[in-house]
């Protein structure tokens, strides 16, 4: 079996589920003939036809709203927003309807859909193509926010997202779309939502992260191991609802925690995780929780973006600070 990239794993999951379930339809801008600007839907028009792979007119509020209408009729739309920065026009439908339809109608109508979008910085793209505003969605009751960070997890989590009976925001980290390849068996097996993945076990410190930052964090953990520091690395994967159990169990073991995300720090999801740690296991902490994040600035244009993003070096520095903390 050949190895595939994260973006190819997305394509493989879409194809699998479209084959398995006639209710799955895809819609978005440039997704049909062109196969998506990142090619995540390539070949699907040819295989499943124009009734199920729909190029829409260029209007994001419409893409969100029409998907919700389809979902209420029992279709399972998987809509692509070309970039996260253009999803904002659809926010009203995501916040005011997708997340609420089940609750509003006391279960009479539901909204089983997936909104996919490429997200994150590091690909030297123009403004609005580097957004990492996952916290906006994580704040909304009724949504799920899922972020894969490897080909295997992209395949398994996307299958789970499509099968989930509620709306899922599925954020695909563009910088790692083609960074690594893995063998991804096309067996239709989903991975669990609402669960963190422990990517590396360690006893000295817990590193909590997701998305693009998983690779910087793993790199940092590798270098720390050379200094005999064993870091446990957790990929949160579903940032809403949070699996605090896994994070707490790890921090209870290590007594130290650094949270890494590329989004701006203030009110980022890291703040929620840190607050929960303070509420639930303050006394098991041997040092304050630290965050390594993007700055509280607009993501700079391409020339400066690498200075904005957290790096393995910044993570290692934070880990050293936490380890050398003397209360």
């Amino acid at each position, binding site marked *: 079996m050949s190895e595939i990239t994260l973006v190819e794993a997305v394509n493989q999951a879409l194809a699998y589920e479209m084959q398995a379930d006639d209710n799955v339809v895809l819609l978005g801008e440039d997704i049909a003939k062109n196969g998506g600007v990142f090619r995540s839907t390539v070949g699907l028009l040819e295989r499943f036809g124009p*009734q199920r792979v729909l190029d829409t*007119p260029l209007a994001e509020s*419409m893409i969100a709203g029409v998907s*919700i*209408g389809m979902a*209420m009729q029992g279709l399972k739309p998987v809509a692509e927003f070309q970039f996260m920065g253009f999803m904002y026009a659809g926010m009203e439908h995501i916040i005011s309807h997708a997340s609420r339809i*089940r609750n509003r*109608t*006391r279960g009479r109508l539901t909204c089983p859909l997936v909104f996919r979008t490429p997200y994150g910085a590091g690909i030297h793209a123009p403004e609005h193509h580097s957004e990492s505003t996952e916290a906006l969605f994580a704040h909304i009751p009724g949504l799920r926010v899922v972020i894969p960070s490897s080909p295997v997890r992209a395949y398994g989590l996307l299958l789970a997202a499509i099968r989930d009976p509620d709306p899922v925001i599925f954020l695909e980290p563009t910088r790692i779309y083609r960074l690594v390849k893995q063998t991804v068996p096309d067996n239709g097996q989903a991975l669990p939502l609402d669960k963190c993945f422990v990517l590396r076990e360690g006893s000295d410190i817990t590193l909590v992260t997701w998305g693009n930052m998983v690779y910087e964090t793993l790199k940092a953990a590798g270098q720390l191991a050379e200094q005999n520091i064993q870091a446990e690395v957790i990929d949160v994967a579903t940032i809403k609802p949070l699996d605090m159990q896994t994070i707490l169990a790890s921090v209870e073991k290590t007594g130290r925690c650094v949270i890494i995300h590329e989004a701006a720090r203030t009110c980022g999801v890291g703040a929620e995780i840190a607050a929960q740690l303070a509420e639930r296991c303050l006394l098991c902490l041997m040092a304050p929780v630290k965050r390594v994040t993007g700055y509280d600035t607009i993501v700079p244009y391409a020339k400066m973006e690498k200075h904005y993003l957290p790096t393995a070096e910044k993570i290692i520095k934070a880990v050293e600070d936490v380890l050398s903390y003397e209360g």
Partner: protein
Amino acid sequence: MTIVAKFEIPYLRFLDSEGKINKPLPHFAKNSRDLISLYRTMVLTRTFDAKAINLQRTGKLGTYPSSLGQEAISTAIGAAMQPNDVFCPAYREYAAQLQRGVTMAEILAYWSGDERGNQFAANPEDLPIYVPLATQCLHAAGIASAFKLRNQPRVVIVVCGDGATSRGDFYEAINLAGVWQLPIVFVVNNNQWAISVPRTAQTNAATLAQKAIAGGFAGEQVDGNDVIAVKYALDNAIAKARAGSGPSLIEAITYRLCDHTTADDAKRYWDPQTVEQAWQEEPIKRLRQYLIKNKHWDETQEAHLQVECNQQIEQAVTEYMNLPPAKLTDMFDYLYASLPAIYLEQRREVEI
């Protein structure tokens, strides 16, 4: 100069404000039973509205938007639709909702602040009232897309107000409906007002119907106080949509003869003369005059109808007032198909 395209917006009316016919009636309107049925629905709706306002004034209901003066539009919608079509209402569509199996008790529960009012025990697929204006237009387009993808001969009717037509969602829905040739009918209730902002301040367009032209399909104006005209236009638009020939837009011109809601005071912005004139045009009186003149209706029947309406409404009010309070845990229990673990601690706080 070459003209590359030309458009027209027709206007339709059969019954004038005096109840006189100004052109041959369509087939359905020659049947007095059908006309009487439309008349009864309009009267029931107006009586229900008055009761709801009364309940609000006496502290038994929350803020309530009346449909006073606009009953013909919604009555015609309910009569023109098939049960398995889908209705996407604005918030003054009680007449259509009642015909589609939504109960008065559910409507009252909704306006009392109880989500169970959206549960529609007898209607599984219609949308509940949406508060963010015009957003229902896009969901309606999505529902129509589902019908089309599944080759179902079903139609979606979506209603919004004149104010709502200024929103992007309205245009985006019109555009998609045209380009995908969706089985959908857009009905604009042009009651001249968006709270205090008059229709003339919403758009410089001569009509709202012409907004369909940009989407590549037909728009027409009808006298929204002539239930025959609204029903006729809807029958045609629905038949066209059902046959796979695409969307239509009907701008129904009427007047909001009430405050925007019970929380509004229209005297702050209304011109009393215009309102007095608008009362002359209202939909119920003209149909009654027509029916009486043609010996289809009389004072005794009218009195009977009033008694029947009041009985039905009183029964619904009793049902509404007797609805036991919902469980506090309901606020958690319909968030997701099954509640994620992280919510359990918060849910326990409201458990009793």
